[in-house]
């Protein structure tokens, strides 16, 4: 649905994006992370057709944004960093305008508008002037605009900026609902939001794509923290011999409690094997916690490491 091929973008002599490549299919939600000035908005603008790449190309639903701009833009909904709204229009008038410029068939317009307004929770505000709305509702109006024409690809640049916590929760639910049959790329500074909503995360730093991380795979952890009542000398060897175990690292031992980090094969037999073993040895398991790399760790490793090199 979206494919960026070695996309670079220069502003004069400044290289804002350098050789960014990735592809996202239908039903995928991609989070775009990066520090301020990393190139997230530039990448969004390039993918939305507001900026053409200096090198490389972007395909939206199989259409090249530069060579077949109309076909590509028909398959695209874009919410820019500042919601592109007209304060003098009511929400409904604005969305009607958006539907018309996006080529929604007149016969379907009313139904489509009602659907979008309902989805984004704008029903009570639909006849209010956009200029009189709060920041959160303006943002929702901007999001509703991106949904006009039922595009296959949604690009959302910091869509939850201005949302209160309740609105942010509702938004995350909405994104998961919309993700069925669409490709969604959204940038955010909120790591927990990206972790909660996205299937994949791209970390951009100084215009380069440093990390393309599949959060679905990461969710199936192969590392566990295990706390066992017993001495390590007696426990370590039998645990290492379990067929599902790859590596065991001892963290520390306090008051007869042994703390271990166990790396296992990607199967689900480890917990069962461990319980059978330890119950036979009379060593109760006090804690068994799957360990996951947090997005924060990933982000800091990627961006911090890069800074360290330079």
């Amino acid at each position: 649905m979206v494919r960026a091929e070695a996309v670079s973008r220069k502003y004069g002599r400044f290289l804002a994006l350098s050789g960014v490549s990735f592809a996202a299919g239908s039903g995928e939600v991609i989070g775009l992370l990066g520090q301020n000035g990393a190139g997230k908005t530039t990448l969004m603008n390039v993918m939305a057709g507001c900026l053409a790449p200096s090198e490389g190309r972007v395909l939206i639903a199989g259409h090249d944004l530069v060579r077949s701009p109309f076909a590509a833009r028909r398959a695209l909904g874009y919410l820019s960093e500042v919601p592109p709204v007209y304060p003098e229009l009511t929400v409904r008038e604005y969305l009607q305008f958006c539907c018309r410029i996006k080529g929604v068939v007149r016969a379907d317009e009313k139904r489509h508008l009602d659907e979008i307004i309902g989805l984004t929770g704008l029903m009570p505000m639909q006849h209010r002037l956009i200029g009189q709305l709060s920041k959160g509702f303006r943002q929702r109006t901007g999001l509703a605009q991106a949904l006009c024409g039922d595009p296959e690809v949604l690009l959302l640049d910091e869509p939850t900026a201005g949302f209160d916590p309740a609105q942010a929760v509702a938004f995350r639910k909405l994104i998961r609902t919309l993700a069925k049959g669409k490709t969604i790329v959204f940038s955010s500074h909120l790591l927990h939001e990206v972790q909660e909503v996205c299937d994949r995360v791209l970390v951009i730093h100084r215009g380069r794509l440093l990390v393309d991380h599949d959060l679905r795979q990461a969710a199936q952890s192969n590392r566990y923290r295990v706390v066992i009542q017993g001495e390590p000398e007696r426990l370590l060897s039998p645990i290492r011999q379990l067929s599902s175990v790859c590596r065991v690292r001892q963290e520390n031992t306090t008051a007869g409690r042994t703390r271990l980090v166990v790396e296992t094969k990607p199967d689900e037999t480890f917990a069962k094997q461990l319980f059978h073993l330890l119950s036979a040895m009379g060593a109760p398991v006090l804690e068994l916690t799957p360990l996951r790399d947090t997005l924060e760790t990933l982000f800091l490793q990627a961006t911090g490491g890069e800074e360290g090199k330079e």
Partner: protein
Amino acid sequence: MRAVYHKELRSYFYTPTGWLFITVFLSLAGLLFYLNNILPRSSDFSAFLSMMSYVWMLLTPILVMRLMAGERRGMTDKLLQSAPLSVASLVTGKYLAACTVMLIAVTLSLAYPLLMSACARVYPMEVLSGILGFLLQGCAFIALDLMVTSTVRNTFSAAALAFGVNLFVWLMSLMTSSAAMPAALTRGIAFFSLYERFIPFLSAQLSPANILFYLMFCISMLAVSITMLKLERARER
């Protein structure tokens, strides 16, 4: 194009711009009607229209200033750029909306010749020809101002630039009556002058050449606006 046209027309009347334009236009028209027709007890409508033709210089910048600059200021240009909408549709829709507001103002000002016809002898052809020329001249000024403001980012800069260009056009037309100017240059300026082309309409001379000139002028200005916007987008790209 229709979507842009309807949206722009709404925006004119949902913001003070359209009302301001019509109010100032009708106020100036009322004042000039009083000075040219009521005070001297004259039914010569051409004198009124002749004076009114200078009003475009002041008022078309009000209509045009936010057409393109407003999109950039409000960041709505991103919406238009990412939508399957051609630059030509965008420019034409906006231009026709501005012309419609002008048409509404001119239509309302027809009350003056109607009022005059109730108590004096009015030559309908002279009035109709004059109004046609006046409308064409207004359309030409809007097209010119739209062209010069098509890549401006600030609405006030756009208004100032449009007014400056209109003033220049007027000053150039004044030069056509200067005896010190070479005849060839005077003829050249007169050929392209939006004011000189209007004069025959006032005496009911409906010359196809003049009508065609105004139409071609408008189309050319729109074409230049479209090209400038495309070039600007390409440069941004």
